[in-house]
């Protein structure tokens, strides 16, 4: 097999600066499985700098992931959309609509078959053959299958496309699910979050641009560098947890002092996200820093793990597991005490009968 030169080497060979290398995102084409020979062909064919083609489709979603994407500061969304990628299909930003837009989608899939990146936002509605989610007169499911077939890589943006999201919460009226089972077995890069951090969303694309390969993924398909730690393990309030300093209620002295929100139900201890280190808006804040306990929005089933303001669910008026446990413990103790008394009575009567029998024998 021919040794493939790295993209950086390719850049040096072409006498391009590192800056243009970084800006160019050429490397995306490498990810798309093009050899550099073919890459040259593309350059000539396009008579300009070819950009990695991105198709962004929407299922059952709220467009919050799109919005988060354009909140990215590094890279800036405008740089990304106008200079780094060719966002050929996206319901939020694309100029076109209706029939020509759908025709353009088909054309793009055909022209770049096997070479484009598919970004998916939103869950798949499985019930009623997918008629709960229609776009362009067709089901989203069919759109996803069509677009996934020719994709070089698939990015699932947000908790909806990763795991089904809010519409998949109990009782899941539309039978919504994450996209993984509907893309013909292609690997999916999951970027969960509701929405994910802007720079995490763009960072996945940027990683490919800078290093020419897919980021390392964990067993669930999430990029390790962005989902490698629990928020609790990177939280700036962790020292307060360790010290046993907690906000007991919203806006109490502990809350004002910025103590740990664990007792207000914070899901930091089991949520994998970059909220604690990267944070939102380039380190400006994240929910915990603003006094709001984490709701675990990057987790698979977080919508059904409510209530968000308690660590343990409450069962109606009875209370949480601890109350039930104490209740059962007291009942068990009372039960054994009663049983002991009854046992003694039973034994005494048994012994008495045995004694009488013995007397009879005598």
């Amino acid at each position, binding site marked *: 097999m021919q040794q493939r030169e790295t993209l950086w080497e390719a850049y040096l060979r072409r006498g391009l600066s590192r800056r243009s290398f970084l800006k160019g995102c050429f490397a995306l084409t490498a990810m798309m499985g093009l050899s550099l020979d073919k890459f040259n062909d593309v350059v000539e064919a396009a008579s300009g700098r070819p950009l990695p083609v991105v198709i962004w489709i929407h299922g059952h979603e709220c467009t919050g992931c799109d919005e988060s994407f354009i909140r990215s500061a590094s890279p800036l969304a405008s740089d990304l959309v106008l200079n780094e990628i060719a966002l050929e299909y996206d319901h939020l930003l694309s100029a076109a609509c209706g029939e020509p837009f759908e025709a353009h989608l088909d054309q793009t899939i055909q022209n770049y078959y096997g070479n484009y990146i598919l970004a998916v936002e939103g869950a798949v509605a499985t019930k009623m053959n997918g008629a709960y989610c229609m776009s362009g007169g067709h089901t989203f499911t069919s759109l996803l299958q069509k677009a996934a077939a020719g994709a070089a890589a698939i990015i699932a943006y947000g908790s909806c496309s990763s795991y089904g999201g809010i519409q998949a919460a109990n009782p899941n009226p539309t039978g919504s699910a994450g996209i993984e089972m509907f893309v013909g077995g292609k690997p999916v890069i999951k970027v969960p979050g509701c929405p994910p951090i802007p720079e995490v969303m763009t960072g996945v694309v940027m990683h490919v641009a800078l290093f020419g390969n897919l980021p390392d993924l964990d067993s669930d398909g999430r990029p390790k560098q962005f989902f*490698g730690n629990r928020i609790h393990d990177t939280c700036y309030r962790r020292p307060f947890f360790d010290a046993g*300093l*907690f906000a007991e209620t919203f806006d109490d002295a502990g809350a004002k002092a910025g103590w740990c929100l664990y*007792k207000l139900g914070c899901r930091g201890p089991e949520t994998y996200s970059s909220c604690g280190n990267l944070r939102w808006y380039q380190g400006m804040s994240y929910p915990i820093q603003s006094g709001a306990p984490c709701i675990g929005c990057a987790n698979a*089933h977080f919508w059904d793990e409510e209530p968000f303001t308690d*660590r343990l669910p409450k069962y109606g008026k009875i209370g949480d597991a601890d109350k039930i446990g104490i209740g*059962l413990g007291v009942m*068990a103790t009372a039960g054994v005490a009663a049983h002991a008394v009854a046992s003694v009575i039973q034994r005494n009567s048994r012994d008495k009968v045995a004694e009488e029998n013995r007397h009879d024998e005598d």
Partner: protein
Amino acid sequence: MKEVKRKEFYLFSPFLRIFHWIMVTMILILFATGILIAKPLQVMTPEPFLTITSMDLVRDIHFVAAFILCASLILRVYGFAINRGDRLFPRFWEGHFYSETVDVALHYMLLKKEHASYLRNPMARASYAMLYVLLAIEIFTGFAMYFMNKPNGTGAALFGWVNTILGSEMMTHLVHHYVAWFIILFAIGHLYMVVRAEFMEGESEVSSMFSGSKILAHNPKDANEVD
């Protein structure tokens, strides 16, 4: 009064006995610290490191206790290997297990005056087996949470799947917490039953966990298991 002839049965190896008492201690420590971890005490003192409510300390005690409990399992396993009395299984696969269980249960429900004599009666066997299942759940869920501070490490590779199976790590927390309560409920029942057996039925359930031997008045039905 008539003289009762008693016979001694050697059951429990020292390894099992040591393990048992370590387990008792550790379960109590684990439960107490576990409850404190789930619901830390309310302290509004600005210098928590002077108090016992430091979460760091509480968690460390919890983890050390957990490791001691797991390490002591080796004693249990060794005893299991060398001594027949250490492996009194519930014999699910034998028909008499069920009829004997009913017999014992009727007695415990005070519907029968007594039950046949056993080295260890089938209900006790089943409940101890259940305890090991509960312990295993605690160990697996515990390590699944503990090792995930380093998700790329060996510990996470060994136990991380538990979180996947349960759907999410939050669920692991809940299972860990709920099962702990079941263990405590078991302990209450266990404590009562052994004391009852020791002092009311003369079955030396308590003393045997110190001495290793049961001294029984009747020939137990399952005596053949230690011959």
